[in-house]
């Protein structure tokens, strides 16, 4: 959502509605978007719920989805399955970070490792992680094992490859400056390369968080009896699509929260990198 609230920078004079919107403050524009969302939900409720233009099973109106959410909570389905999903996600993401960061550092700082390990990593990263799902099902059974494995496989490559790219693309002029002022190889690594790679690391973590969620959903949809993905499948198969939509909304909220959380940690750890007008 990087340019969500960014100021317009077109050179053309803005007129009419666009000009009005362009003149709004970031807060004003955020308010506008919220208003739009509310209007859209109202319209959806009216068209599907009241007029019945579309089959409500396929596109349950907002109030039905809210009802579905309440049902999920009352049955205890939500607490039980959300806990499983959150646990898998956190475990998988932690493993991906624990393996991806050291490997990324190694790839970034050693040319041989980069040249040999890099192509292998890029090749595996290019393939959709979902392809590994049937193998993991055979290896780990039907528990949360395959889910965690798929989360790890989904999140590890962006973390590793971004970090390595960050170290590799550090401005040569910063390295020169460090050498001029007496920096040893160790100094260059510690004082230049590592801090310079921090924004890349966080870009990788954000990307990893999004892909981890996708990996989790895919794994839970295709081979798990517990977790939010399983809830979606079960409710959809029994035509309780209001519950499916409620579960999907929760996953979306989780995904957005996690990327925002990574952004928050970045702003806290790397305040120098704060960009004006950029949300993430």
């Amino acid at each position, binding site marked *: 959502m990087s340019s969500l609230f960014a100021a317009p920078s077109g050179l053309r004079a803005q007129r009419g509605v666009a000009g009005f919107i362009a003149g709004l403050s970031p807060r004003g524009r955020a308010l506008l978007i919220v208003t739009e969302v509310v209007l859209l939900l109202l319209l959806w409720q009216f068209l599907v719920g009241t007029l019945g233009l579309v089959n409500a099973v396929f596109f349950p109106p907002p109030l039905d989805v809210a009802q579905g959410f309440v049902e999920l909570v009352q049955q205890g389905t939500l607490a039980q399955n959300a806990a499983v999903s959150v646990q898998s996600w956190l475990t998988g993401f932690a493993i991906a970070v624990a393996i991806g960061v050291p490997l990324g550092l190694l790839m970034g700082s050693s040319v041989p490792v980069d040249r040999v390990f890099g192509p292998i990593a890029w090749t595996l990263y290019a393939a959709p992680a979902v392809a590994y799902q049937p193998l993991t099902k055979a290896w780990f059974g039907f528990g949360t094992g395959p889910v965690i494995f798929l989360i790890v496989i989904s999140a590890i490559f962006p973390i590793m490859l971004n970090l390595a790219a960050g170290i590799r693309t550090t*401005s040569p*002029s*910063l390295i*020169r*400056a*460090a*050498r*001029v*002022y*007496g*920096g*040893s190889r160790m*100094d260059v690594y510690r*004082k*230049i390369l590592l*801090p*310079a790679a*921090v924004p890349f690391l966080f870009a990788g973590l954000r990307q990893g968080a999004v892909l981890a969620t996708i990996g989790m959903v895919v794994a839970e949809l295709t081979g798990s009896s517990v977790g939010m993905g399983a809830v979606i499948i079960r409710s959809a198969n029994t035509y309780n699509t209001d519950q499916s939509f409620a579960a999907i909304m929760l996953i979306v909220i989780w995904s957005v929260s996690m990327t925002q959380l990574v952004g928050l940690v970045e702003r806290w750890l*790397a*305040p*120098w*990198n704060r960009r004006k007008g950029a949300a993430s």
Partner: protein
Amino acid sequence: MPDSAETAAAPLIEVRGVTVRYDIARTGTSLTAVEGVDLDIAEGEFVTVLGPSGCGKTTVMNVIAGLVKPTEGSVTVDGRTVTGPGPDRAVVFQDYALLPWRSVFDNVRFGLEMQQSLNSGDWRERVQNAIELVGLAGFEQSYPRELSGGMQQRVGLARAIVAEPRILLMDEPLGAVDALTREVMRDEIEKLITATGKTVIFITHSIEEAILLGDRIVVFKSHPGAILEEITVDLPRPRSERGAQSDPRYLELRDHLWDVLQNEATAASRGGKGS
């Protein structure tokens, strides 16, 4: 080996027959960036190096800084051959090369910290002094991205002088600064540095800067980079305040340098050596 008694008369920096070639692996050929450069610079001298873009003047500076090893020839500073960067030489970079994750104060401290200079108890004072000297008092905790280009280069300057090096190497330090700030900073650099008596090599492609700052101007040509001419400037200092720009000697020098560079540019384009 000359010892210190003899070097009083000998130049501080001696550049002897420096040639730098780069191998281009892709085509299997090599590119000569500079060829046979000889240059003596005395202690306390302010030398401006003038030349068109890509004429290798930065390469010569990098050799003196110890960042580039010459293919042939050598550089000695105070009688010792340069094999790498050292605390006696500081560099001000054209693109500032400030660490974006450090505040102004910490960026200036960077000039000290890797030379174990932080062990001496007064380093905070030295950093603060350098910041005040370049006129950045009050901006100690700002990050580089919050500063204008001119202010960022002031940080670069403070970082260079904080460790009190004998030699300042300045690679088109005002090249990326806007025109107005450029003039102001040029005059400040003249006052600041001539007062400290440092030896300076200042690279520029501005004729005006070369004349107003230099005790001596070294004119470079390109393809390959080599020294074309050396001119001593004997205008009284501080030049900007004394209205050097209207001095007939200034005007004469300016026209002469203009002609030299113009001829060089025409010759180069006739030679058809585009790159």
